[in-house]
């Protein structure tokens, strides 16, 4: 590729043809401010805070969209540029609610950061908040349109990354606003509650439904026994919430931290992740043997379930009937575990810690009460746990570790990798291979299904039967595989779908994730943890074995069907 030479702020730089000013400036360590720019999205050039002076041009040019040309001379901090940026920031701030102190994105807000960097000290324009109503219609996501700065990154995430098309623009000029399409409230839109819009938002206009107070009330209630489960993707990312690098907080320290903030028992969703593999693996084998509906789709990701129920209601029979690990856990903790511990299930307050916003919705589904109670009482995201940790004042570098409580706390490496795209598939293959062939799997690493590529595929020879599998993450990738299935052209037997890019490590409840590169770092940490696990196959989890021996008796058996499996419902969004 040809190179282009240009000068930025007097510094000569040579970049590949087709680069933008923003990219070229980055090469020489010049930071140009941005708001609507997102490294994994298409260029929008609508916030205009990245404008720069290009010699010979009367107009300032947006660095994010302007391609460099040979001999170009760029000034990124001339008086004209600074005046423009400050004025644009003042304009945006002039109708932005001044609620930084009470905002979920306080100290993690791109607008706040720029206001600080550009020393915005007063309002040149009269401060007028639009006074729009918050959208609290979903159990997962809250939108505060007053805080929206119309950068449209959420729309891009929803439409391009996820192909959900739940958000759009209504009205024009300063009346323009981001609105859920086809309906007044988010709940009436095709929103699948994946929460990718939250990561995309540079400010606090979209957040999870925060339920910290509900947790604190439960802890304060002497009649409640507060039990938690931690999803596989949480530990890697929780470190980021307390100023550490992904994966840097050891599991036992995390567990100790959870005890410090008030959990009576700390258990692990990884346990039911292993259980999912046993149930789902057997379901797949049954479908293969008995000519059931294929390809079978995984069912761990509630955003994906919502998507399938919304856009592919005709393919619901393809979904594994297995509940997600969260809901399997919920159903068991108030039955099996309560019995084993001699605790009254009515007293158990079951809290799951999830990387996911859609899990809040999933836990609230009316069908998720097979224990006789609401199976999961409260879902807290990684971010909410991060806030509770910061509230607690714990110094995690000095906290002594603690281990999981019994009976639903043991897990294998196969469960750990559930957190990354391809992980469920890989975990399933590790088990299915051994169950079918009766031979020990020499190399448990199915690297073909790992990584950030949108759609991955692999083939496994199970005693002469070649099983074709595919993995997709991000719903627009899922859509490609679904369209293939709908057209009757899918070559696969088993398909893993995770709603969020990168899988759960990039879930809507994770620490604010600004790029796919950040997702990759978490993925890397997950495979390190898998490697460090003594047991790396789900069917070898000793506590899962006990569960079957004492309670479930067999995979896909009567008890399993009662507690661990479910069915799906078309969303009937009539306008679609």
């Amino acid at each position, binding site marked *: 590729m040809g190179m282009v030479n240009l000068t930025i702020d007097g510094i000569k730089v040579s970049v590949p043809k087709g680069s933008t000013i923003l990219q070229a400036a980055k090469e020489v360590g010049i930071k140009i401010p941005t*708001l609507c720019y997102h490294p994994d999205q298409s*260029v*929008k*050039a*609508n*916030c*205009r*805070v990245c*404008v720069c002076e290009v010699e010979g041009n*009367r*107009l*300032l040019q*947006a660095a994010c*969209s*302007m*391609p460099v040309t040979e001999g170009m001379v760029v000034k990124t901090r001339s008086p*004209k540029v600074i*005046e*423009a940026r400050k*004025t*644009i920031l003042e*304009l*945006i701030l*002039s*109708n932005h609610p001044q609620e930084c102190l009470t905002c979920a994105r306080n100290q993690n807000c791109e607008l706040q950061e720029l206001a600080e960097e550009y020393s915005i000290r007063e309002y*040149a*324009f*009269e401060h007028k908040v639009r006074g729009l109503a918050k959208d609290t219609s979903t159990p997962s996501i809250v939108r505060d349109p007053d805080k929206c*700065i*119309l950068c449209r990154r959420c729309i891009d995430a929803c439409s391009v990354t996820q192909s959900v098309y739940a958000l759009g*623009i209504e*009205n*024009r*000029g*300063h*009346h*323009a606003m981001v609105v859920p399409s086809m309906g007044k409230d988010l709940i009436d839109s095709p929103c699948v509650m994946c929460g990718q819009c939250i990561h995309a938002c540079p400010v606090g206009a979209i957040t999870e439904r925060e339920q910290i107070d509900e947790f604190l009330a439960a802890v304060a209630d002497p009649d409640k026994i507060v039990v938690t489960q931690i999803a596989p993707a949480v530990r890697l990312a929780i470190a980021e919430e307390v100023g550490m690098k992904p994966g840097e907080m050891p599991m036992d320290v995390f567990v100790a931290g959870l005890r410090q903030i008030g959990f009576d028992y700390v258990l692990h969703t990884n346990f039911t992740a292993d259980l999912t593999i046993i149930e789902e693996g057997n379901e797949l084998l049954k479908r293969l043997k008995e000519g059931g509906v294929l390809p079978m789709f995984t069912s761990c990701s509630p955003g994906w379930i919502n998507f399938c129920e919304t856009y592919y209601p005709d393919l619901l029979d393809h979904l594994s009937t297995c509940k997600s690990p969260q809901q399997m856990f919920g159903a068991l903790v108030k039955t099996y575990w309560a019995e084993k511990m001699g605790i009254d299930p009515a007293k158990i307050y079951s809290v799951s810690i999830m990387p996911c916003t859609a899990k809040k919705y999933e836990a609230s589904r009316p069908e998720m009460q097979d224990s006789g109670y609401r199976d999961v009482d409260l879902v807290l995201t990684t971010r909410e746990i991060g806030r509770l940790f910061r509230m607690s004042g714990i110094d995690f570098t000095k906290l002594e570790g603690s281990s999981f409580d019994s009976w639903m706390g043991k897990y294998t490496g196969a469960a750990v990798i559930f957190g990354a795209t391809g992980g469920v598939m890989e975990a399933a293959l590790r088990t299915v291979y051994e169950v079918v062939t009766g031979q020990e799997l020499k190399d448990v690493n199915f690297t073909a299904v790992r990584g950030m590529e949108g759609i991955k595929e692999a083939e496994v020879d199970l005693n002469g039967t070649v099983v074709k599998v595919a993995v997709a993450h991000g719903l627009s990738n899922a859509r490609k595989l679904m369209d293939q299935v709908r057209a009757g052209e899918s070559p696969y037997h088993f398909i893993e779908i995770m709603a969020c890019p990168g899988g759960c490590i990039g879930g809507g409840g994770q620490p604010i994730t600004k790029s796919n590169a950040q997702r990759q770092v978490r993925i890397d940490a997950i495979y390190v943890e898998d490697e460090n696990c003594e047991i790396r196959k789900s069917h070898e989890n000793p506590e899962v074995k006990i569960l079957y021996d004492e309670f479930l008796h067999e995979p896909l058996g009567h008890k399993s069907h009662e507690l661990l499996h479910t069915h799906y419902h078309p969303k009937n969004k009539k306008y679609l």
Partner: protein
Amino acid sequence: MAEEMRIVLRNYGKIDPLKIDDYIAQGGYKALEKARSMDRETLIEEVKKSKLRGRGGAGFNCGQKWSFAYQAQADQKYVVCNADEGEPGTYKDRLIMENDPHTLIEGMAICAYAIGATKGYIYCRGEYPHLVGILNTAISQAKEKGFLKDFDIEVRSGAGAYVCGEETALIESIEGKRGEPRFKPPYPPSEGLWGKPTIVNNVETFANIPVIVEKGADWYASIGVPSYPGTKVFTLTGDINNKTFFEVPTNTTIRELIYKYGGGIPGGKKFKAVQIGGTSGAFIPEELLDTPVAFDNMAAIGATLGSGAVFVLDETRDIVDVVTRIAKFFEHESCGKCAPCREGTARMYEIMSKINSGKGTTKDIETISRLGRVMSCSCLCGLGQAAPAPVLTTIQHFKADYHAKLV
């Protein structure tokens, strides 16, 4: 009255617009035939040499624009006519389409041949529903007579958004999307409608083409000001005796337009200001009236030619009030895509209202000047960049009027 020079309006009043034979009798479609007998590069070279510049407001060399689309490699190219004549006080394109639709169609067909396009669109202003029938009739007549060959033209109606006169917003609108501008580059000749090379020209620009092809580039280039040759259609409104239209060579001065063609100010009142080019045009004071109505000459006095609307104010008019109303127009018409226009147009109207109602301070004038300065160089498209011009030019030329209204 001084002599007009009618090129684009050459058939005005002479033919029945619904009869193609009338147009043919005036020599119509001969230029298309001639163009098709030339090779494409020669044809484009001829248009370039005529120095015809876009009549929509941006003033880009038409032949050069065509050559970009011609050189672009693509399986499909488009010719789009911008007939979204949304500038208040402008009706030149309507005149052409109402009275001589075939000249537009012929111009588009010549362009289609030149760049290798087989599909064309006329994006017609939503407020001109009566033109859709005229245009469709003319298109089917031209097809029936075999003039269009493999070139198809479809008429699309706008929905009333001013911003859709901006070429990329117009393209988005044709694609069925929200009418909002795209960032440039890439420009439409390389990536336009559905990502394909596209020529977007104004009605008046296309109407010039058949004449240029027929009479030659040298003839055209010799008319008016050399850097912006040819004629320009002006529509006169406001405090002026002849509230009508004129097509004049571009070396005509603003003063001639107002006093010779326009017949001066009614009631013996004195001239106060003239706004040229539409709502986003600059206000021009008495001392600059000897400027020729050509692109670069206007730019030199901080004004634009725009759409050719001429809006005259006499000495009794409250210019601050007029500009306040203009600010309201832009507050209403901003599409809301880019931050400085979305917020800026609203703030501009807010501050203008404050000043106009006697509550403004010198600080407000400073703020609105800074806002205007920033918008004019930072907004995503021409709408936001031009919106502050009436404010900035009146503060520049009529500062006393502002100061008279301050607290």
